[in-house]
């Protein structure tokens, strides 16, 4: 998969000849058909539904096919408050998705627990258990924000390499595709976070 010279490519395009690489073609196809997993957790899901409906129309970006099965989904939109009761199911669903898979943490709750952060039963961010690609702040974020996150994810997919040392994570054989599912402990989920994914921020005093 040799890289073509950019100047040569533009020169060829001017003459009506389009040259592409396998990587560009693959990523172009991938980024324009991101199928999200169909589930919603809380009020952010209503905004997600609005994004999928005709007014905001996520179909313009190729993300309208919400799949009811993780086997067919590329993207997990964690839309809403993740309770500790729900967290194992979310992680298991993410594990059951086929590679390559991406996660958008939508809204303050999915990022950090949001307004319910002090709640005894609220997970303080889904990124404690699964790697998150794009975070959307907001409570709830507007559909435009979700579209923006979607475009950011598309940009990320477009830049992923298929070969070389810096190729995409999902192509590396030693990178895990499954993450440990937390169990219900005596007081909290066990473990409280996956140390390979999440390191708590260190307070500098």
């Amino acid at each position, binding site marked *: 998969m040799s890289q073509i010279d950019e100047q040569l490519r533009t020169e060829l395009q001017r003459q009506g000849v389009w040259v592409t690489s396998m990587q560009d073609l693959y990523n172009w196809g991938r980024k324009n058909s991101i199928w999200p997993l169909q589930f919603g957790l809380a009020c952010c899901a209503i905004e997600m539904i609005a994004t999928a409906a005709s007014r905001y129309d996520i179909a313009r970006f190729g993300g309208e096919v919400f799949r009811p099965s993780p086997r067919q989904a590329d993207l997990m939109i964690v839309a809403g408050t993740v309770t500790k009761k729900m967290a194992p199911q979310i992680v298991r669903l993410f*594990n059951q998705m086929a590679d390559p898979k991406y996660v958008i943490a939508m809204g303050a709750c999915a990022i950090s627990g949001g307004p319910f952060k002090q709640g005894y039963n609220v997970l303080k961010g889904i990124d404690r258990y699964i790697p998150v690609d794009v975070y959307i702040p907001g409570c709830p974020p507007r559909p435009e924000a979700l579209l923006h996150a979607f475009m950011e994810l598309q940009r990320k997919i477009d830049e992923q390499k298929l070969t070389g040392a810096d190729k995409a994570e999902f192509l590396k054989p030693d990178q895990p595709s499954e993450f440990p599912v937390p169990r219900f402990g005596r007081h909290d989920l066990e473990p409280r976070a996956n140390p390979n994914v999440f390191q708590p921020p260190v307070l500098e005093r």
Partner: protein
Amino acid sequence: MRPDPYLFIVILIGVALAFPLIPLALAWLWRRFFQPPKPGPDKTSTYECGVESIGEAHVQFHVQYYLYAIIFLIFDVEAVFLVPFAVAFTGLPVGAFIAILIFLLLLIEGLVWAWGKGCLQWQR
């Protein structure tokens, strides 16, 4: 000379086979050369909305449900015909009234027969 009319069917069968097989083959080649397989206990487990599946999927239903469904059919058909009958009741001639009564009688007869056979008894 006209081509054999079956030739088009043969061509369409070829296209119909190639249409799914070529993407599948491409996907297989892609997986073979680029994508490392990453199976795992969670990934290959049964999908049940994220919940761990419990027990066997091969559940047997009692044969009594079959009889139950058949008897339900009597009331189902009865309802389908009784509603338009009730709507048009005042304007019906005597012949139509007798016809629907005979129809009802046939259904009731079936119910009585099933009752007599003991189908309404739930047998374990």
